[in-house]
């Protein structure tokens, strides 16, 4: 008798619950415009394993907002608005990135910038898309960010300010083949990081399509400090070029160990190198090597030079690519708000998607109806202890 008593509510519960659809409606509150202020959210990695990225991102964001407000604010459809920045830490964790995004949405932001790492940006983008709040990631290069996971169609509210992994890695491969004239290319990459792994795979595919498959395709895991076994194998395979699409905190150790083990050829990197810390950490070991980046600090346009000076004055260090891309993400956003002419998220989304040409610190961007911009990459060389412009790669 007691068993039946328990069974009935149990069955009823399951039936009831199964017939409930989870709340899929975003239900985002309208954008806050109290006191002629627009609220923009920043979802960034202030703590966790890449706090440097978070810090640069926040610095650039604060600078962008300050510049705008000092210049009188944002003119939208005849009214002037100031912009207020709301900063949230996503702790470099997927669940916190989601929580931060939800919090920003609930606070009534007009749009959100960030997260930067793809592993945080992708979950956050689901929130943005279902809440219909535009989101721009300054730095995430994973192609999956802007594409719906289930239907494969481009998302309507998710954008990025940088080029994708595929574009960059293919450009790197072509440089290695055509300019460095490498016949026996080798790769060492972090297999536990999606950006590195994705780039390494595209690099390999491009090499194979060009008729020069890699002679060594070595892997390591984030956090490794010793790469001697992999590098010894690369040296043994008589590689004449080495692709290291790895984070700037790991590359110096890799390069130093490679040289110590007898590798003498050129080294190619990706945008993950682009923090000037890499020069300090490598203490000269990177002299003469190449990497792709989002912009060239020495070939800077007046706009870019202006940004670099202001950033250095405010934060006592040179801006890295995260900072530059974040600054551009804001610039892109502000421009799109102006174009839209109304404080409305859907209009903002349309304006972003159809941006014909935005001239940013990191070059010219064009959006062709999706969230991925058409942008060039630059190849830089480390010369005289500085990043020096070498070449431009156009899509």
């Amino acid at each position, binding site marked *: 008798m007691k068993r039946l008593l328990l069974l009935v509510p149990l069955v009823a519960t399951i039936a009831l619950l199964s017939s409930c659809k989870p*709340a899929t409606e975003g239900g985002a509150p309208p954008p806050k415009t109290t006191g002629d202020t627009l609220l923009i959210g920043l979802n960034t990695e202030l703590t966790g394993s890449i706090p440097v990225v978070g810090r640069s991102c926040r610095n650039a964001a604060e600078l962008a907002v300050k510049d705008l407000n000092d210049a009188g604010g944002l003119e939208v459809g005849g009214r002037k608005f100031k912009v207020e920045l709301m900063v949230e830490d996503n702790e470099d964790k997927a669940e916190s990135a989601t*929580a931060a995004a939800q919090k920003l949405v609930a606070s009534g932001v007009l749009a959100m910038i960030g997260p930067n790492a793809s592993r945080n940006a992708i979950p956050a983008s689901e929130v943005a898309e279902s809440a219909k709040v535009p989101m721009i990631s300054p730095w995430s290069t994973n192609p999956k960010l802007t594409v719906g*996971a289930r239907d494969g169609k481009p998302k309507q509210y998710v954008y990025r300010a940088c080029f994708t992994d595929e574009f960059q890695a293919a450009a790197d491969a072509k440089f290695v083949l055509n300019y460095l004239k490498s016949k026996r290319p080798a790769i060492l990459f972090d297999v536990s990081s999606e950006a590195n792994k994705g780039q390494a795979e595209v690099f390999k595919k491009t090499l194979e399509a060009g008729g020069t498959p890699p002679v060594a395709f070595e892997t390591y895991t984030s956090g490794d400090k010793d790469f001697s076994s992999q590098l010894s194998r690369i040296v043994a395979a008589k590689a004449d070029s080495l692709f290291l699409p790895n984070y700037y905190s790991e590359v110096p150790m890799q390069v130093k160990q490679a040289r110590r083990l007898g590798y003498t050829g050129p080294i190619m990197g990706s945008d993950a190198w682009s923090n000037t810390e890499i020069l300090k950490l490598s203490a000269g070991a990177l002299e003469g090597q190449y990497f792709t980046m989002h912009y060239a600090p020495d070939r800077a346009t007046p706009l870019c030079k202006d940004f670099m000076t202001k950033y250095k004055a405010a934060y006592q260090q040179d801006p890295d690519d995260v900072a530059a891309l974040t600054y551009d993400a804001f610039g892109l956003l502000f421009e799109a708000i102006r174009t839209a002419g109304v404080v409305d998220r859907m209009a903002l989304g349309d304006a972003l998607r159809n941006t014909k040409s935005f001239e940013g610190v990191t070059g010219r961007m064009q959006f062709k109806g999706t969230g991925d911009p058409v942008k060039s990459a630059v190849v830089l060389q480390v010369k005289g202890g500085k990043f020096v412009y070498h070449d431009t790669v156009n899509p």
Partner: protein
Amino acid sequence: MMSDRTRYTVVRMAALLCGLAIAIILPRTVLINPYIELVLKYIGINMVLTVSLNLVNGYMGEFSVGHAGFMAVGAYTSAVLTLFFIPPEWEMWCFPLSILAGGAVSAVAGVLLAFPSFRTRGDYLAIVTLAFNMIIKSALENMPAVGGPRGLTGIHKLTTLAWVYVAVVASVWIVRNFVNSNLGRGVTAIRDDESVAGLVGVNSRRAKVAVFALSAFLAGVAGALFAHEIQFINPRSFTLIKSTEMLVMVYLGGVASIGGSLLGATVYTLLLEGLRPTLQILGISQEWRQVVAPLMLILLMIFRPRGIMGMREFRLFKPRDERRGKPVKEAEP
């Protein structure tokens, strides 16, 4: 006329169902927004996790530091099921099955971990559990079929507040009944003194297997709910950091106490989320948020080492015969 006992049961059922109704209706009202709903779900998931870890660390007195591994197994199993094996139209109906499957596979993993625990205890077992956590993470990273280090994206958002509520209620019910059963009391006997427990007839091997299996099952369930909430899981979500968080919640709330686990989970989640706006208002940079949590833990340990609830328990969770004021039945002569 209903006996006291039946009426008591009916009242409790009604209360639980009310709670369920609230859980179903609340997200649809304007009283809470999706952010608050998300935080409530996180609290619920953390509650299940904390209760599960408390079984091993509190009631059995072991020191498991790798529970995130069980969570990972549950998360990945259920995600793989709903992504690859269940057709979209049936998703909502099969979701509970998927959760249970995640828990079940996790329980098998738990049983595997029980074997080393027969011979090792204390600090050594801690390492074994840590090793286990890292092996699972490493294995997942090396399995391209489940996305490898990139993880699985596009998991459907099937976790509702209602399901989380059901999971919490079920976990509490299961654990409460287990702990007060013969086997469960054997477990606390093992904690107090393993040799003596053996002498009074406790089959320690059976108890250990039961505890690890049950604990892993619950952690797996929590993992499944987690996966279907944030819609994206990768091995990095289930490392030592997550295990450490679980430890903090258990010891914050109090060992060997179900109420303590619920409290610990709630306080910890709310604290971290609540610090976001608090620090913003105070103008302090968000990095200090991560400093506050361990600081509070240290202070708590120094001034109240047994956690908030200590070894005590809410009246609700004790068996009726043990509540204060009720005389224990004498054995029939």
